[in-house]
């Protein structure tokens, strides 16, 4: 197998194939950076055009876009507190405060270096470990996946923010939104009010754009002539070779985030946002100064960005070996493969090694190129956005949001829906309800419900089936540790302290 890997290399280094990856990365960064446009959309637009292209050129474009977009989403997340993609929500936590403190340039550099590292780690996992890792995927049936969702919800409970009640209300709102549409087992309509457009549920991008992008834009427009404090206008960009040594202290976060991203990637359905949230949370927990997190801690940006890129190539492991697209992007990419007669499955590696391994190399090169293209080029040009007059910037973003949301399914219904969510988001923002629990509730709520119901069906209603095997038991133990661990630790730690005092 590894000789096939080397065999595929020369082709990938050909001019057109390499150019395809480069163009893909640039396009991906741009698409990711524009709120409302996502990698899924860019690749679906691309799919029809790939008919006439050589397979590796087509796949190179896709690999580039996927990698580029995962970083691109960080740019507006840092500069405007608007996550460009769902996976960049966790990047806003520390990225935006950094920008306000005049460290926006550094935040973007951390983001691009971390993204690149995550992407490289993920590409290596795909190249070297795809067949064994696909066996791990097989261990996770509906019951196990349900526990993953529960674990995700519990471990990220910190997202509830300062006010737990408000946080829980936000999370419940997210879960409620996840319920809209036809139910995952029988297909009964829930809260669709007869609208066919609602039957498939609410696309995460619609919710995200409404909730996250509209309120900041309204803020921009509310006080167009407000004198900004000088710091946030100044990006404070230093040459990357000078900032790079400062980032070296993130190495633990990078390793941890890469592993989390790869792990989440091979479990179909969770996606980059969960990877970023979990990596952020774990890094914060391991930090010696957890209090600085959320207030402009560069390591937070690193944690989030390394994980959402580490999810990219690894999400293709179940997609290529088992034909299960873990994410919406992977699903579209499978279509791109199908057009070229490449059918996913264990045989794919045997029958079409040159294309498959070439595709993997392209992922690696895409991740490396990200460092160069995203580093100076994109960061500097996008950073200039902040210099635009506020009303102009706000209007541009609104137009992009409308176009982006419209183009998901090509219908106005989604645009109205987005504006509705925008109104909700604006109110939540003013009333200080945290937004991340909504996103998480939507993603994990649906994930948990579907798998719980499948698991119960498999067990024919017998709940003990949920805990029947070791994978489930380990996951439950981990969940309990996450929920009660901090409390117990504090208690024993507290006891010992008071003991010492006594």
């Amino acid at each position, binding site marked *: 197998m590894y000789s096939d890997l080397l065999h595929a290399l020369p082709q990938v280094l050909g001019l057109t194939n390499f150019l395809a990856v480069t163009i893909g990365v640039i396009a991906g960064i741009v698409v990711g950076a524009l709120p409302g446009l996502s990698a899924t959309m860019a690749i679906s637009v691309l799919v029809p055009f790939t008919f006439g292209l050589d397979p590796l050129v087509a796949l190179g474009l896709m690999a580039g876009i996927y990698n580029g977009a995962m970083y691109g989403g960080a740019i507006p997340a840092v500069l405007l507190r608007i996550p460009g993609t769902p996976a960049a929500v966790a990047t806003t936590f520390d990225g935006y405060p950094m920008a306000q403190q005049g460290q926006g340039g550094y935040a973007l550099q951390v983001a691009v270096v971390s993204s690149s590292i995550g992407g490289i780690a993920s590409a290596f996992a795909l190249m070297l470990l795809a067949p064994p890792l696909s066996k791990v995927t097989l261990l996770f049936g509906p019951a196990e996946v349900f526990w993953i969702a529960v674990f995700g919800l519990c471990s990220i409970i910190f997202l509830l923010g300062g006010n737990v009640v408000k946080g829980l209300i936000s999370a419940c709102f997210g879960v409620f939104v996840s319920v809209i549409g*036809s139910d995952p087992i029988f*297909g009964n309509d829930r809260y669709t009010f007869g609208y066919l457009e609602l039957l498939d549920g609410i696309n995460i991008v619609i919710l995200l754009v409404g909730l996250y992008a509209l309120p900041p834009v309204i803020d921009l427009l509310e006080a167009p002539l407000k004198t900004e404090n000088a710091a946030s206008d100044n990006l404070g960009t230093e040459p990357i070779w000078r900032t790079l040594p400062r980032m070296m202290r993130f190495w633990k976060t990078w390793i941890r985030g890469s592993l989390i991203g790869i792990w989440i990637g091979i479990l179909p359905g969770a996606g980059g946002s969960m990877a970023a949230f979990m990596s952020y949370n774990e890094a914060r927990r391991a930090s010696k100064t957890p209090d600085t997190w959320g207030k402009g801690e560069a390591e937070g940006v690193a944690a989030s960005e390394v994980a959402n890129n580490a999810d990219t190539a690894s999400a293709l492991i179940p997609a290529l070996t088992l034909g299960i697209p873990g994410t919406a992007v992977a699903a579209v990419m499978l279509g791109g493969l199908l057009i070229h007669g490449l059918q996913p499955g264990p*045989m794919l590696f045997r029958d079409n090694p040159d294309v498959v391994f070439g595709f993997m190399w392209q992922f690696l090169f895409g991740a490396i190129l990200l460092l160069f293209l995203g580093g100076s080029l994109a960061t500097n040009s996008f950073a200039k956005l902040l210099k635009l007059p506020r009303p102009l910037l706000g209007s541009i973003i609104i137009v992009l949001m409308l176009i982006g949301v419209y183009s998901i399914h090509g219908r106005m219904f989604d645009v109205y829906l987005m504006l509705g969510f925008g109104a909700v988001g604006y109110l939540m923002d003013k009333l200080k309800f945290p937004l991340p629990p909504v996103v998480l509730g939507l993603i994990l709520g649906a994930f948990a419900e579907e798998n719980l119901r499948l698991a119960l069906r498999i067990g024919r209603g017998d709940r003990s089936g949920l805990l029947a095997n070791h994978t489930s038991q380990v996951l439950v133990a981990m969940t309990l540790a996450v929920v009660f661990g901090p409390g117990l630790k504090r208690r024993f730690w507290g006891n010992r302290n008071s003991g010492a005092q006594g």
Partner: protein
Amino acid sequence: MKTSIWALALATLAATPALAEYPEKPIEIIVGYSAGGGTDVMARTVGKFLEEALGGASVVVKNEPGAGGQIGFTHVAAAKPDGYTLGTFNMPAALALTYDRAADYDAKSFTYLANFVEDPNTIVVSKSSGYDTLEALIEDSRANPGAVTMGLSSLGGNDHFAALMMAKSANSEFTLVPFKGAALARTAMIGGHVAAGTMALSQTVGFEDQLKVLAVLSDERSPFAPDVPTAKERGFDVEMSSLRGVVAPVGLEPAVADKLLSALAAVNANPEFQKMMAEQGNPMNYIAGADFAAIAETQSEVARTIWETTPWK
């Protein structure tokens, strides 16, 4: 005599423009699913060759995903029958939707042009399941009704119907576990989370090392898997498959219909097209015009019967 010739000539003259001019603007093929799915890829492949067959016309594939394809099917049914709006048609799913939900179309809302793909359903288990024959699986499901879990893609489609028909014919009972798509069902089966599954034959291709196909639910053995017996051979008279073709709204102008039918026949006859479809893993079964319409009628009847005897919601 003379007048009748004139009349004929006039009639031809009057008729030819419509025929000669079609197509004078781009033809849209509406796909009720997202870009990149199996149906979308078929539509794009057909579209590409249809452009040639219509002498350089422009064929545009438009995705209108949503509600399990219903948004797209509804759009096609309601479109003007002028030959500029065509659509992909998936059976039995498109027709099942007309029973389990309020729909603005039924089997009579379309002009059936050509079916290209017919993918027979299978009864399949994982190699490690211990089942070697269809009989062994059926025996277990009879001995302990409901104990055999059967993974499939969502309810109300060919997989679901195949499982119900199999159970009925074998006088046994399975616990149906509807996943989001056949690939997830297949993975759960390989991972041992469900005992068996039913899915289209093409979904099992490439997984020969992991899966054992016990039976194909078609009239004859499939050229894709000549060693696998049909359920009929084993004494269970069950046939179910997933069909994918191209339709137009009902009332399509006959001249346009003829032109489209001959163009689609030319597409099907093109060896390049056949090669491309085979590479994408599509078992072909070209059925055109009235024969296609007759199948739609039968399929609609099958879906109705199943819905009436075993409603799934």
